[in-house]
């Protein structure tokens, strides 16, 4: 997990990020039987956590599921993950383009705007999907709680679990989006241990599939 909730210039989100990550950790570390690969926070969060390099430390690409909490911003159509000292540092699409190709399957961007730009789908070399938002959103621990409940207790597909969790948690001003590498993954992927997981796309191509909805 990565959690940026203290910022130099942007408004702080503490304790929202801590609370959200505690919910995620509680669900996955409970009966679901997952183990935590890493949990970086605030000034320790950087490009490497998001798998920006193909050798050495791979960050989220060493974890099957990654949850990121923090600010996101849309600057002239380019969406960015804000690091603690934004605007001095941030994650942009080019940092991870075609980089998610190892262990990772799914990434959640619990932040505003990030998936407004579909180019983030370009990160999915062999990874399967990205869940997030294309508009503003507000802080909520109900979102990860419902998402995990739908994935783990109800064994819903990941895309439908995100649909239900976002719809239950937010009003219609907020638009949620899922991006998957293949249509089969979007329609069939379950969280590991909860059902069928579609195969990786191989060979990798430049096409991604997405859906979005008013919550």
């Amino acid at each position, binding site marked *: 997990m990565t959690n940026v909730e203290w910022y130099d210039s942007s408004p702080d989100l503490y304790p929202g990020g801590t609370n959200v990550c505690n919910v995620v950790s509680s669900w996955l570390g409970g009966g679901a039987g997952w183990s935590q690969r890493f949990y970086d926070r605030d000034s320790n969060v950087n490009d490497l956590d998001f798998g920006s390099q193909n050798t050495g430390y791979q960050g989220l690409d060493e974890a099957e599921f990654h949850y990121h909490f923090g600010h996101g911003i849309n600057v002239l159509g380019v969406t960015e993950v804000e690091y603690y000292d934004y605007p001095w540092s*941030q994650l942009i699409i080019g940092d991870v383009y075609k980089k998610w190709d190892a262990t990772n399957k799914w990434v959640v961007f619990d932040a505003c705007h990030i998936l407004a730009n579909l180019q983030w789908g370009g990160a999915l070399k062999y990874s399967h999907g990205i869940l997030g938002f294309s508009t503003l959103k507000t802080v909520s621990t109900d979102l990860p709680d419902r998402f995990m409940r739908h994935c783990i207790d109800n064994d819903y597909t990941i895309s439908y679990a995100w649909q239900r969790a976002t719809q239950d948690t937010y009003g219609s001003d907020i638009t949620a989006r899922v991006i998957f590498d293949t249509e089969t993954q979007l329609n069939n992927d379950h969280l590991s241990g909860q059902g069928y997981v579609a195969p990786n796309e191989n060979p990798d191509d430049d096409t991604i599939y997405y859906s979005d909805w008013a919550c």
Partner: protein
Amino acid sequence: MLHRMKIRMMTPFTIATGLAEVKKMKPTGILSVIAVCAVASLFGCSLSNFPVSHPLLAQSGTSYELTTEFPQSPATAAVYEVTGKESFTIGSERLMDPKTDTPSVDEAPSLALKALEGYGGLPEDAVLHLVEKVYLNKYDVKTGINEPVAPQWTLVIFEQEVQGNPVIGPGAEIWVALGENGGLLQLDKVWRTVKYQTDVPIITSQEAFSRLSKGEMLIPIQSGLGSVTINKIKLGYYAEDRKYEQKQYKPVWIFYGKDSQNNDVRLPVMATES
């Protein structure tokens, strides 16, 4: 007369002309602030003339440009007591499946009303808010070509109005998804019944805008250093998430507008003193 209350500034922290050309750049925001100060001084102005300024100077992180007049602010507004709550969802994973067709946006509202007949019908204080077709889409990250693969559902959303005042938030919505032949795919209803309780003193819309500019919204948004254009301000109410036992609808000032990508936003600020 329209108010334009913010210095709009370029924020070219990152420039993209295509994926291959995306580069990180040093921020120029601080330099821009200095530049604007210099330009302002040429015209005999100072930044203190502007109630809301660049995000780097604002406490909230987000800058708000006002393009509408402040509405008349009554001294008091009604508080409503919540007397009941209905909350349920029916649906399945089949919602996400590609469909051969779903209803058009023209025919969907009447089909939604028909679907609701089996679930108590439409509440008297409900208003149609949104109708849209949701598609599974295909996108090529190299060429940027975007094309629909198949419709998934047609969405009809009803929201609540209390005595003509909008109720926003996740706790006052009827969400209807229609599939092939107008069949009901998913229905999510969270609705509170209310009755008038009392009137309470409220702050003015100008004071509420000041709160907004300081980031004092009901719930923090997860976007820093952005910009929002406010084009309408109205008194209304905020309905909390279904899991909370909300006792009252207290008045809020709702700031309607567009974010930097032209998405509609509605930002609630508490209208009561505390």
